[in-house]
């Protein structure tokens, strides 16, 4: 695990608190707003940030994150701009772990080695690539390892006891448990089922377990925070952002405060969950 990630999870564990992981998409709705929003997230209560790398064909994402990607691309999003946003963030925050999340083609197109080098240099801690399962991971993991980046792996309700070791063989940082069968931002999982799944996963690994997909409210986030080491919220945050935009997808003075306020509510839920 990178120093930043292990330090963050150790601090939280010592405080008996789960982490709030917040997803935002790079360059959504524009470069300046996305940069300022990202910088506002730690103070609002995000413990870890997932920075989405926009892609035209996000196959595992629901409408909210699809639209975020398209808004970002319309605003000129690119891998270079994502990395630039990361540099801008690190200029003001050297503590909050950043996970880059996206799909493989833009990474492949940029060049896997160049991507790993530039992302690490800019201050990323880990990478989630939704469409690279363990079967194809050898394309990516040597370069990530060389540059000290964690390959964050996904486990799902379909990952049984035979499958989990295959996933964990590549996993670093934390394990991201996808709580529902489905795409982001749609259904929500029942806490009892997630609790069982997380217990099963813990038999296979000592990595922290984050739960995501379908967590929309501070209450749901709190529920997951009692079960897992981290709760990930993406689509609900994006929805708050989208609701503040003009019909032409321009940011308004409300954009950053509205998202920050919502992240604050989520953080209160997560951080108070085990009290």
């Amino acid at each position: 695990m990178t120093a930043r990630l292990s330090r963050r999870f150790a601090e939280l564990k010592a405080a008996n608190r789960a982490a709030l992981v917040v997803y935002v998409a790079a360059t959504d709705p524009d470069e300046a707003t996305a940069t300022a929003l990202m910088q506002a997230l730690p103070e609002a209560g995000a413990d870890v940030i997932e920075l989405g790398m926009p892609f035209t064909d996000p196959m595992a994402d629901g409408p909210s994150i699809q639209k975020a990607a398209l808004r970002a691309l319309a605003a000129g999003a690119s891998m270079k701009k994502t990395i630039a946003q990361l540099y801008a963030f690190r200029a003001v925050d050297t503590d909050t772990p950043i996970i880059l999340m996206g799909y493989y083609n833009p990474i492949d197109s940029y060049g896997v080695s160049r991507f790993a080098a530039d992302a690490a240099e800019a201050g990323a801690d880990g990478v989630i690539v939704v469409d690279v399962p363990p079967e194809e991971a050898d394309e990516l993991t040597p370069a990530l390892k060389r540059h000290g980046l964690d390959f964050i792996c996904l486990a799902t309700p379909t990952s049984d006891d035979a499958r989990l070791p295959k996933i964990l063989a590549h996993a670093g940082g934390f394990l991201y448990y996808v709580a529902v069968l489905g795409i982001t931002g749609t259904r929500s999982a029942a806490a009892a089922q997630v609790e069982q799944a997380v217990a099963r996963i813990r038999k296979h690994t000592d990595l922290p377990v984050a739960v995501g997909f379908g967590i929309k409210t501070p209450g749901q986030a709190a529920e997951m925070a009692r079960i897992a080491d981290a709760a990930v919220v993406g689509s609900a945050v994006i929805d708050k952002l989208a609701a503040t935009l003009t019909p032409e997808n321009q940011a308004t003075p409300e954009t950053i405060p509205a998202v920050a306020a919502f992240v604050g509510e989520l953080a209160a839920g997560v951080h108070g969950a085990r009290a």
Partner: protein
Amino acid sequence: MNTRLPNSFAAGPDDRGHFGPYGGRFVAETLMPLILEVEKAFAAASADPAFKAEMDGYLADFVGRPSPLYFAERLTEICGGAKIYFKREDLNHTGAHKVNNCIGQILLAKRMGKTRIIAETGAGQHGVATATVCALFGIPCVIYMGAVDIARQQPNVFRMKLLGAEVRPVTSGAATLKDAMNEAMRDWVANVEDTYYLIGTVAGPHPYPVMVREFQKIIGEEAKAQLQAKEGRLPDSLYAAVGGGSNAIGLFYPFLDDPSVKIYGVEAAGRGTDTEEHAASLTMGRPGVLHGSRTYLLQNDDGQITEAYSISAGLDYPGVGPEHSWLKDAGRIDYVSITDAEALDAFHQMTRHEGIIPALESSHAIAQVLKVAGSLPKDHIILACLSGRGDKDVETVAKAMGKEL
């Protein structure tokens, strides 16, 4: 390019689904166990003579196979060169080659105990074929189709509905085949327990490219035997339209290791490969990863997928089956492209001179044949795939002619 020639061009893929650097299984973890299950079930079915017997029965009595091999005497005369033969996949039940694959996969889905079918469609041919086999076996099905394609392929949309399918319009992206495939994958991720995704072409994650090829190679196997019976020899050249590439691989595959046979895949050049409006991923694209496999793609410098365009909805896809990518790099197949205008001209020639209204997809292959046949010797034998009939396209053609139906 490969540094050494393989012993066989027909040996792939390896057990991880790779054709050289292409193919693979680039899917979300949720789908992985299911894809492994499909792979296992397909391997078991392939080894089971009862499965083949059942499939052959439906192909004979329901689809109407073998499809004829037709000598196009008048086009041959008009071109004044090579002898032109067409493999008549347009005469299959449902009007295209797509049904060959659908019979195979629906029988597999049944073996796997799946109770719901999903599929994507562009021109609607695969959607109609899927809806047809689902009606045949009484399995509910949902067809994802881009809203733009729905507008230009109304007859097929209505056909699918008559057959009992639910047609779900897809409005994301450019609202065409690529986006329909994204939506189908999203559906599958959410319904892995009971749903089988019946992919219509040799694309997608392993094992789909090899499985669809195995269900389509009957095109080339039959044609090879039929031409042997008529001419006593192999053809000299093969032509087929390439969108995802399933009719093409179906015709080509049994000839890959016959070095005397030249093979040409014909992509859609749309308004021209010098414009941005085409679907020529092999001739104009570069390798990348989309919809589960590494293959040639239309993409920008930043790895974002660009929109494909063709007058033919079935060729309007920014990727292509990974085996085609490998065969291109290996130098075994030449890929060329045909514009909308050339395809339309071929559509009219075929209709007027042979009394066969071809699909606009197939018209691309025909156009390439018409382009080259005249300059080839009279003892040269061309074998082209007439992959589908054009009834579904008459509105599009009328519009291109400036007429309203």
